[in-house]
């Protein structure tokens, strides 16, 4: 008699499980996509909303400027000055300030064992700047050289060249942006700065309430590129 109860119990549990299993398998058979893909789309949608808001504001501003320009020469000149200032800020031709980080890298090549190749290279600086850009840096400078879209960071002999100017250690990188985000992008475990430190380099990252970044000192004359009227 006791044996029969046990069998009934096992059968009951088994039956329950089979049903559950069947139902989940059925659900799994519905078309689904990995969570990452949906997440990517959501991120893009957010970015697009921001871009649209920005463009909308820009279009309204331009419309206002345009109608004022048509009033006469004085107004046209005044509007053009405003446009010039606006473009200068976006092009890095004015000094800017804001919250951010100050990164100092001391080249400790004297202290590393002879024959090691682990001195600070242009590539490290290139990667560091890339990390800061990915973390949303709005303005950047290396040893007083403002980085613009065509700034190179390149080893030439024993110097690193930025904007065709020689820079030497210690390297001071300034970035304006959300300082916690900028800082954590560099200090992330297994990230670039950890690797640099493992190699014996001295890297300090200071969040700052106010960082001042100088204007680009070169000229923005273009020999080859011309403004096009249409895309």
């Amino acid at each position, binding site marked *: 008699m006791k044996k029969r109860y046990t069998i009934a119990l096992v059968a009951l549990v*088994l039956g329950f*499980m089979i049903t559950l299993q069947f139902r*989940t398998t059925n*659900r799994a058979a*519905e*078309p689904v996509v990995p969570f990452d*893909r*949906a997440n*990517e789309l*959501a*991120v*893009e949608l957010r*970015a697009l909303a921001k*871009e*649209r808001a*920005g*463009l909308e*504001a820009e*279009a309204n501003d331009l*419309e206002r400027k*345009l109608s004022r320009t*048509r009033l006469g*020469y004085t107004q*046209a*000149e005044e509007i*053009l*000055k405003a*446009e*010039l200032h606006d473009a200068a*800020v*976006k*092009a890095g031709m*004015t*000094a*800017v300030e*804001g919250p951010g980080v100050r990164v100092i890298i001391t080249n400790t090549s004297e202290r590393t064992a002879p024959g090691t190749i682990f001195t600070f290279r242009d*590539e490290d600086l290139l990667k560091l700047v*890339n990390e800061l*850009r*990915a973390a949303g840096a*709005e303005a950047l400078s290396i040893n007083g050289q403002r980085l*613009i*879209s*065509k700034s*190179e960071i390149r080893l030439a002999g024993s110097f690193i*060249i930025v904007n065709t100017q020689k820079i030497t250690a210690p390297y001071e990188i300034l970035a*304006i*942006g*959300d300082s916690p985000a900028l800082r954590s992008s560099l200090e992330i475990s297994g990230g670039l700065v950890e690797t640099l430190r493992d190699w014996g380099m001295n890297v300090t990252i200071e969040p700052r309430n106010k960082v001042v970044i100088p204007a680009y000192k070169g000229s*923005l*004359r*273009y*020999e*080859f*590129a*011309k*403004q*096009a009227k*249409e*895309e």
Partner: protein
Amino acid sequence: MGLMIAVQFRLSREIERTVPVQRVQRLTEEVRAARQDRDRLQARVTGLRNELDDATTQAGLRPMKATLSGYRIEAGLVPVIGPGVEVTLSDSNAVLQPGQNPNLYVLHDEDVLRVLNELRAAGAEVLAINGERLLSTSEVRCIGPTILVNKAKRVAAPFVITAIGEPDTMINSLRMRGGVVDTLQQFWGIQVSIRKLTQVSIPAYKGSREFTHARPVGG
């Protein structure tokens, strides 16, 4: 029974990590509409800038307008054309030996960064990847088979870098013995092809360039 419990458990976990396809379809649709809307606004802004230029043709304003044009190019506010090069990068086609790390033979952020840096050092004036204008704030991030630039913009392989500048200087600099292209091809078998173009056209930056943290000093 143990086996069943295990299958059950794994299935449930799998389901948690997925999203119904309908939701993604809706999202994809929304993204497409938002993109169209963005492009429409972008065209309107470009058009208004052209109108503003046409409305300020007085002789006295000419020097200011010349400066403005340069600033706009650097800021990515306007589309540009000029002579230049087109560099196409694609993953290695090397046949891997058993035990070799395939990760070494695919394109990394650093490779793209180095090619861009080399072009800049050779005097490139304006750059883009797969039609995405590169600015002073642009990063390059390789994520799987795609590259992420300008924060949320995803571009897929093959990666085509376009640069406006003196074509021969840029080509020589890239092709230098022991240079960037040499290293990429010889060591990792990354496929690089370089084309000289008499006219490259690079679109304006897609989006607005307002700063949220940086403000002009004293302004």
